[in-house]
């Protein structure tokens, strides 16, 4: 990150405020929080998901959009309570399940980001108040 002091910035849309910095986890597939992630461990448990078995806890989670039951908002909240939530979420298009989950759990979240530009990135910064991703 910040190669030669050079910073790339992507601007998106703020969904939930806050800042975070850290390791990224990129998912090219949508994520179902309810039934797709174990709220006690943060591990992706959806059968056949490309990231099945991977832990999202503490990561800056990058994915196209959420899917599945609206109960998913509560799952995100439960992850946060269990200290297994992602540090931030970056989406292509945020829908209501993830938006509400991020807000009630106070997880920084922005969308309208061309996430394909981030699939090789290992570390980044998110400033959701300014709706930017910096790497």
């Amino acid at each position: 990150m910040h190669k030669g002091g050079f910073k790339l910035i992507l601007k998106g849309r703020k969904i939930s405020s806050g800042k975070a910095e850290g390791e990224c986890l990129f998912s090219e597939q949508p994520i179902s929080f309810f039934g797709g992630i174990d709220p006690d461990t943060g591990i992706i448990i959806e059968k056949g998901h490309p990231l099945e078995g991977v832990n999202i806890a503490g990561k800056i989670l990058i994915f196209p959009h959420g899917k599945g039951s609206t109960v998913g908002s509560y799952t995100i909240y439960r992850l946060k309570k269990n200290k297994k939530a992602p540090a931030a979420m970056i989406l292509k298009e945020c829908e209501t399940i993830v938006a509400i989950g991020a807000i009630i759990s106070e997880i920084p979240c922005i969308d309208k980001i061309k996430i394909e530009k981030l699939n090789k990135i290992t570390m980044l910064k998110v400033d959701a108040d300014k709706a930017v991703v910096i790497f």
Partner: protein
Amino acid sequence: MKLSKEEKEYLEGKHGNAAKKAMEILVALGKIYSAKRLITVDSVQISGVSYHTIGDAGLELLEDLAKDGKIKVPLTTLNPAGIDIENWQCLGIDKNFAEKQQRILSAFKKIGVIVSCTCTPYLIGNIPKYGSHIAWSESSAVCFANSIIGARTNRESGLSSLASAITGKTPDYGLHIEKNRKPKYLVEVKANLTDITDFGALGKIIGEKIGGEIPLIRGISDADLDELKSLCASIATFGGTALFHIKDLTPEKVKAPKKKLYITSADIEKAKNSFFDTNEYDFIAIGCPHASITEIQQIASALDGKMVKKEFWVFCARPVKKISDLMGYTEVIEKAGARFACDTCMAVAPLKGRFNGMITNSAKACFYGRGSNNFKVRLATLEECIKVALN
């Protein structure tokens, strides 16, 4: 999105933490759906009440919000819970489950929500005005409010409707806007619909054919409240439909669209037969959506002086049961060996594994019976359900 001074104060936390989060939710939804502003709502119905569906996460969140959260919309009612509040022990509910459920209800009550615990708020006094903006969740009630009453609501989630109850606002998009309420399909019904199950079947067919689009239905000369309630539940379950119009029956006057589809008696029969998994039943379930007083009257008159041989549960709102008590229907029904389950329903109570074969007059109950509870199901008229119960 333009926000008023007061709305901004909510975001800044001047009205407390719960109100701040509630406003953040509504503003985020407004952004996602490109709303230009927030509008005032005067009625709310909140889903996501059963401990079975929202779990510990939901319980903890509601208790957090109840610390300083207060409703701004006085007419805020609640969806069914996972238990009959007064009678959970008799219905075989686990003690831990009942305790967690009671905590959820206490949190809602502390926020000021009327703990009505019914999916038919319109049967117990939550009846919005024609054309008014409201924020309802519970898909069947959303469909009823939009279609039969002519109030305006999107299909809210449990938390977005709670956010509206706390702030009194909802983002102005979707079905709040007149031009989005026009039908896309003209559905010509060429069948004589005479029973609740016919309307359930019709809802399944339309829902599956047109998904979330709005239909104008033609060819239904008459339908009573219970039949309309069944149609709303079914069309919303199978299609995600939040609004339909019926020519000469529902209040909004709309022009017929060009895209047409026809539904015949054969289609209705086929749809009914699609809920025929078994001939063996150990559970008769009536009241999805919650039974009206007229349905309870019918059950009482059919069971009077007889004895059921299988588990027979009537699901209804507690105020409706109180009227039933007053009229002596409850006594007749309970003497016949059937039971009431108030405040809860077959879709959200922890009934998985309790029964094998369920017979019901509700297409929606068939869907959830299969999906959530692993029951084998059959859709049949109330008369047939009672015949099965007595033999």
